[in-house]
């Protein structure tokens, strides 16, 4: 690499982290390439509707409309300073090159420096009925509303284990959708106990309190400490049943359920890059390790946003900028030390807030522990928890990739995005070991499906 000419810099992901990263790089006089699967920038949290389904930013993003507008306008403002490659999947990373599938077919792009801002998706744990038509992730319920102006059903039940739950409940109610139940599988106590930590970000807490109060006034308070959720229905969702904190059974008719249990990082590219991963005991997931500045274990790869551990949209913007400044600095170019210090202070505050938030919404071990033998864990391949447990014991499997090899769990179209964490919980419990000890599914290219016909173009 030649640091003085024009290094090839690629940013993957056009969410808040990736967008802030390219803006910072462009301001430093570099010309980054920004690659993103979506047609329009924004990522998932600031996702823009497809053409023809536009609505005002206030309607789509509420309190965050200003941030969304600013991010959406970034690429227009930067113009030719950024080589934006929308509708392009990065399906492999090998050595210092990326394999792309975009509107013009396959292409390989080399990089001297890479920023991975690959985001997150919902963390999923199976429960009875979770593969029925009409059951979606909470994130999906939100996207249906945001990107399409539809609710996932006429009578919707929402279930969660994180701050996304009160937000989606609020958004659904505000949009005129019928929310028949709002259930939090984590207890209320930790939220109160961690209020001081949460106040590291008072504005964010205020919004959370606002959503909670609005939901309360709308007659849809979120019930905490909910257990044993179960979706019933013949061919589609007909009802949701659960057990409350006092052990009472409840059942309510509905035709759709949005349910997930926090978020998990999309880290397949960091994995293929050979970045070192570490186990985060709080969120019980493996994440690519990085410094506060976003430097990974690999000198030419930087990590930012939820793809490098869940931090939320505000933290993602800060991390995107901080990682870009680290990159600029590593190229031997000047950076504004004052700005770096401001970012690091803000990021430290975000970390305190995030730690309190994770403590307020602890991992719902009771859901993971209750996964029945008949329950499908891998929805791509249809592999049940019973199969995983039998394989763990009868065939003496103690590690996730071996479990995948022998059962096909995590071997389907989604490459274990959906089932990986749940399968690890099931395997660890069956073996009587900590979840950390069973490892994690390794990534394989393509990280998302690619059509054979593309090879002919």
């Amino acid at each position, binding site marked *: 690499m030649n640091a003085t000419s024009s290094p090839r810099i690629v940013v993957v992901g056009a969410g808040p982290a990736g967008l802030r990263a390219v803006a910072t790089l462009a301001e430093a006089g570099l010309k980054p390439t920004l690659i993103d699967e979506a047609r329009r920038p924004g990522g998932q949290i600031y996702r823009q509707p497809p053409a023809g389904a536009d609505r005002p930013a206030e309607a789509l993003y509420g309190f965050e409309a200003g941030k969304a507008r600013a991010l959406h306008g970034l690429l227009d403002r930067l113009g030719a300073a950024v080589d934006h490659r929308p509708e392009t999947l990065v399906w492999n990373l090998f050595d210092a090159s990326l394999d792309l599938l975009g509107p013009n077919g396959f292409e390989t792009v080399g990089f001297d420096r890479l920023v991975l801002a690959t985001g997150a998706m919902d963390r999923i744990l199976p429960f009875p009925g979770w593969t029925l*038509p009409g059951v979606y992730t909470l994130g999906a319920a939100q996207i249906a509303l945001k990107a*399409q102006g539809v609710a996932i059903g006429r009578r919707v039940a929402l279930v969660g284990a994180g701050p996304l739950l009160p937000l989606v409940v609020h958004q659904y109610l505000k*949009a005129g959708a019928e929310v028949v139940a709002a259930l939090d599988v984590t207890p209320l106590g930790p939220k109160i106990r961690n209020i001081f930590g949460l106040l590291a970000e008072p504005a964010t807490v205020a919004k959370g309190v606002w959503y909670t109060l609005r939901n309360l006034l709308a007659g849809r308070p979120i019930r905490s400490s909910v257990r044993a959720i179960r979706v019933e229905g013949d061919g589609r969702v007909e009802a949701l049943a659960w057990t409350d904190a006092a052990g009472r059974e409840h059942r309510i008719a509905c035709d759709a359920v949005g349910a997930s249990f926090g978020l998990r990082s999309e880290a397949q590219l960091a994995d293929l890059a050979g970045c070192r991963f570490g186990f985060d005991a709080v969120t019980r997931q493996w994440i690519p390790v990085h410094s506060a500045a976003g430097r990974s274990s690999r000198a030419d790869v930087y990590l930012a946003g939820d793809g490098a551990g869940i931090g939320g949209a505000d933290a993602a913007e800060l991390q995107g900028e901080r990682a870009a400044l680290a990159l600029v600095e590593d190229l031997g170019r000047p950076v504004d030390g004052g700005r770096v210090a401001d970012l690091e202070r803000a990021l430290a505050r975000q970390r305190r807030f995030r730690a309190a938030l994770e403590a307020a919404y602890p991992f719902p071990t009771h859901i993971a522990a209750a996964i029945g033998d008949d329950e499908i864990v891998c929805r791509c391949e249809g592999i049940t928890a019973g199969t995983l447990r039998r394989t763990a014991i009868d065939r003496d499997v103690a590690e996730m990739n071996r479990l995948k090899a022998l059962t096909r769990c995590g071997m389907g179209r989604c490459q274990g995005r959906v089932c990986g964490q749940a399968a690890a919980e099931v395997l660890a419990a069956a073996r009587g070991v900590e979840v950390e000890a069973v490892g994690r599914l390794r990534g394989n290219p393509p990280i998302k499906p690619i059509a054979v016909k593309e090879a002919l173009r």
Partner: protein
Amino acid sequence: MIEDAPPPSSRPLFHRLGLRDGAPIDFTIDGRPARAMAGDLLITAILTNRSDLRRFEFGEAMRAGFCLMGGCQDCWVDLADGRRVRACSTPVEAGMAVIVEGRRA
């Protein structure tokens, strides 16, 4: 004589909240005419007409997508022209012929 109730899949799943408007777009599902709205992704187009998208390969069940953000790969659908598309990231097009349960004459 009492007619059989329509199958549960024939009732829509997604519910339009009247938040936006758009020109109607005509397409078909298993040969039957269906209507979507400009700006619809294919998943919205299909699920405002019925409750599922495809057959699950390894059991009797049907599937209707799951994550809506291109991660879970649950919403790949077949089109009569041979294409296979991910319904949560593909805009509906006029005349699209979606196959869910099978081809119809």
